[in-house]
């Protein structure tokens, strides 16, 4: 039949979208580095060499050295572990809680929906960076707290996407057929509705991930994230800022890494959308 070649074709179709391929490749590269970074990096991320402070890019140091003579390239490679771990867990937390809220609000509707969605509106009304700063100032900055803040901040977007998909799905006739055989609400939510929520959720999750990378880097830059000497990209940019006139590469290295990764994740999520939602689900 005409439709069953759709899934198979979606991978092949990717070759028409080079940006997506590049996105997948770069995201994959940094992910690999998150695992094997310390093994392949030319120097240890905290190896100081004060005689080689603020060196320009050279054969030994591809993007130069920072104020302690540490190799920026090695620090960027090793730092991808931090960014993946923090931003990834934050996004995952947001996806899990957002999914639960979206499912419940969308499926039950009525008063439940009204209360949950108004709470979400309150959360959306607070400027995210401000909220993050207040929370981290009062709780103290640790990786766990950053993860919680990031997760908390992105719950509204995820739950809204999930809710809109559930609202559409629950009026479909396969859900009515399930009601006609007396299925419980839990069964309908998890067995009938959830599987169809997953593809748009995966797209949404990848978008949240790219936003989370940005937020984690911002928090690091402001000194609210992971503490030195860890090779956090945001933190590195923050530190290098003071030596910008002498060694701009120490700033451009990690800043460039953030930009490249955020853009790549964006390309990837575009590709995911194309593969998983070929009909196009509007948000």
């Amino acid at each position, binding site marked *: 039949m005409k439709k069953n070649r759709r899934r198979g074709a979606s991978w092949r179709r990717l070759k028409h979208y080079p940006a997506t391929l590049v996105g997948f490749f770069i995201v994959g590269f940094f992910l690999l580095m998150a695992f094997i970074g310390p093994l392949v990096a030319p120097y240890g991320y905290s190896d100081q060499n004060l005689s080689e402070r603020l060196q320009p890019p050279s054969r030994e140091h591809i993007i130069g050295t920072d104020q302690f003579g540490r190799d920026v390239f090695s620090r960027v490679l090793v730092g991808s572990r931090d960014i993946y771990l923090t931003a990834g867990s934050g996004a995952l937390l947001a996806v899990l809680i957002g999914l639960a809220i979206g499912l419940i609000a969308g499926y039950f509707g009525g008063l439940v929906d009204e209360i949950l969605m108004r709470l979400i509106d309150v959360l959306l009304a607070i400027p995210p960076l401000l909220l993050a700063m207040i929370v981290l100032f009062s709780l103290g900055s640790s990786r766990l707290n950053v993860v919680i803040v990031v997760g908390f901040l992105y719950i509204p977007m995820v739950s809204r996407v999930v809710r809109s998909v559930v609202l559409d799905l629950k009026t479909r006739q396969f859900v009515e057929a399930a009601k*006609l055989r*007396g299925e419980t609400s839990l069964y309908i939510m998890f067995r009938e509705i959830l599987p169809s929520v997953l593809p748009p959720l995966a797209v949404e999750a990848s978008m949240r991930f790219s936003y989370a990378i940005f937020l984690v880097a911002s928090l690091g830059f402001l000194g609210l994230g992971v503490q030195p000497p860890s090779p956090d990209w945001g933190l590195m940019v923050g530190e290098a800022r003071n030596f910008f006139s002498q060694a701009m590469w120490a700033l451009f290295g990690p800043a460039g890494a953030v930009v490249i990764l955020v853009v790549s994740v964006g390309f990837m999520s575009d590709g995911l959308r194309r593969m998983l939602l070929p009909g196009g689900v509007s948000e």
Partner: protein
Amino acid sequence: MSIRTTKKVQGASPGLEVRDLTITYNTEDGPLDTVRNLSFKIAPGEIYGLVGESGSGKTTIARAVVNYLASNGTIKSGRILLDGVDLCTKTKKEMRSIWGSDITMVHQDPNKSVNPSMSIGNQIAEMVRVHSGISKAEARKKAVDMLSWVRMPDPSRVARRYPHQLSGGQLQRVLIAIALVTNPRLLIMDEPTTALDVTTEAVILDLIRDLLMEYQTAVLYITHNLGVVARLCHRVGVIYAGALMEQGPVSRVFKKMLHPYTLGLLGSVPRVELDKRDIVLNTIPGYIPQPDSLPAGCIFAPRCRGAEDACRASRPPLVDTKEGADHITACRRWQVVKNTPEKFANPQEKREMREPTTEDIVLDSVNVKKYFPISRVRLGDLIRGKRPVVKAVDDISLRIRQGFTMGIVGESGCGKTTFARCIAGLEKASAGKIIVGDENLPYVVSKRSADQLKKIQMVFQNPDASLNPQHTVGASVARPLTRLKNLSKKVLQERLEELFQSVNLPKEYMNRLPHEISGGEKQRVAIARALATDPKLLICDEPISSLDVSVQASLMNTLMELQNRRGTSCLFISHDLAAVKHLSSWIAVIYLGRLWEIGSASDILKPPHHPYTEALFSALPIPDPDAKQSRVRLREAVPSAVTIPPGCRFHPRCPRKVGEICENEEPPWQDYGHWHKICCHIPLEELVEIQNADEGDLQ
């Protein structure tokens, strides 16, 4: 009408001529020839019907003719001549002066073809001004003239209205007015009545036919509905998978078809005027081939019951049969089709009907009502302390006996689906009793016991939404068995196979996902799922409406077969009177939430009819150009169920209204015997007389 100016016909060959047209789409899987070597001619003043199933390339042809293909589509070869001028060679810029003045189009969905932020009058006036350059005031006057010319009631008021204030039928009239205001040489109509109710469709078709008689416009009318072609067109081309199969005058093609595909299509349509329930509809086995996997020989050969080796070896050319005016066919064996059509038809023609043996009543709905509160509340209503409601179902009582099928017909918005959903418990009835067997069922499905749930199951309208896209179809059918019947693994598998077999699906299908099977097969799975619990009552809510005619036919055969063999009682809902008539032994006619006529299928179609039934019946497009139908037409649009007219609810639209009594008093139920009941003020003997007289006029 004097508002038109006749355009001079230029060129040697007036009208539209399409020569050897091949259209290619560039897809990711390479180029696909979706239309191949198509040729046809339309003379000025002629209505040419292009008919085919979905996926046959009808709309692509229309778009190619106006030189407006999608960006990946190209005309690979061939010529499109309008009054002798080749349109293929024109640039988009040159086409712009042709679109709207020489070629106009009416599309399927009227709501998408109008600008929602412009008044109707201005939209017509704009069209006039762009193409003739007359003053604003004149154009506006002409717009009102056009509206009255397409028989719009109260044209000057309608001109000031906006699209959302008009009904679908009225909008389609506006679009016809816009399409004809420039007096085009070619008018293309792409399924212009498909989105409308039958009653409105009939009015629009009458309008199109009457208006075009005055014009020298060539009309390309695209549709999947054979009945519409029979009623409207002069000539017809039957298209299949992008190629012409048969072409000729309507009177010949519908009577003496010379291609097995035409034969199959016409045999697929249930005929309302024939009083035979035991007939097995002719079907076309298999599916329409995709343009990238066309068979080497005749493209119809794999589905043809009379195909021979020669048919499969090479593709047959179109031949002029010399059987009267311009009747051509792409069948090598057309003489055989002509002389012994039964060789190409379904082997089984009749089915032995089993009569139900018990008198048990399966469903007894007593005074069922469903009122929806209106979300928009007016202050005045609040002060007076009433909440306005939509009376979607207003007091419906009917009984279904064991083994019988009750068909429910009515226009869209008359409450048939809401009634069915109340019975199923998907909608909470506001009042009344729903008695199944001897049990009074709770209103909502969640309050019903497993035993009660088993008794009512439903088949839904939209095949794409009725199966969970993430579950295999086997799992979808198995779930009700494990949930409501607690079957063991081994018995389950046997039962599944039996169910799949009963709906004519191979058991290998169980592992497929819904997107891997066709629409008709999805509906078969949905039927299997509904039958899994051995329901006493099966509710079918428009189960075939969204499918192609040949698929409809095979599904109807399956439904009939199942119902006949298993003795399941069925509530069959459809707007298609012919389908209801074919499948049901009893018919109930519903309008504005109430029943107006109920009786056995054969009684309903003989006078006396309720005037509403009569209108439904005479609106039905019958695929036979010689069919005798009285011309009873309704004024458009079912009124809103919020402000129900007093007296007889049907009186504002009733073609047989007798007088004040209809406006003030609710009509009584009259019994014509054999449980044939009609709710009308007119005495039944009188109805018989006038309705027989009307039919007599036609003969």
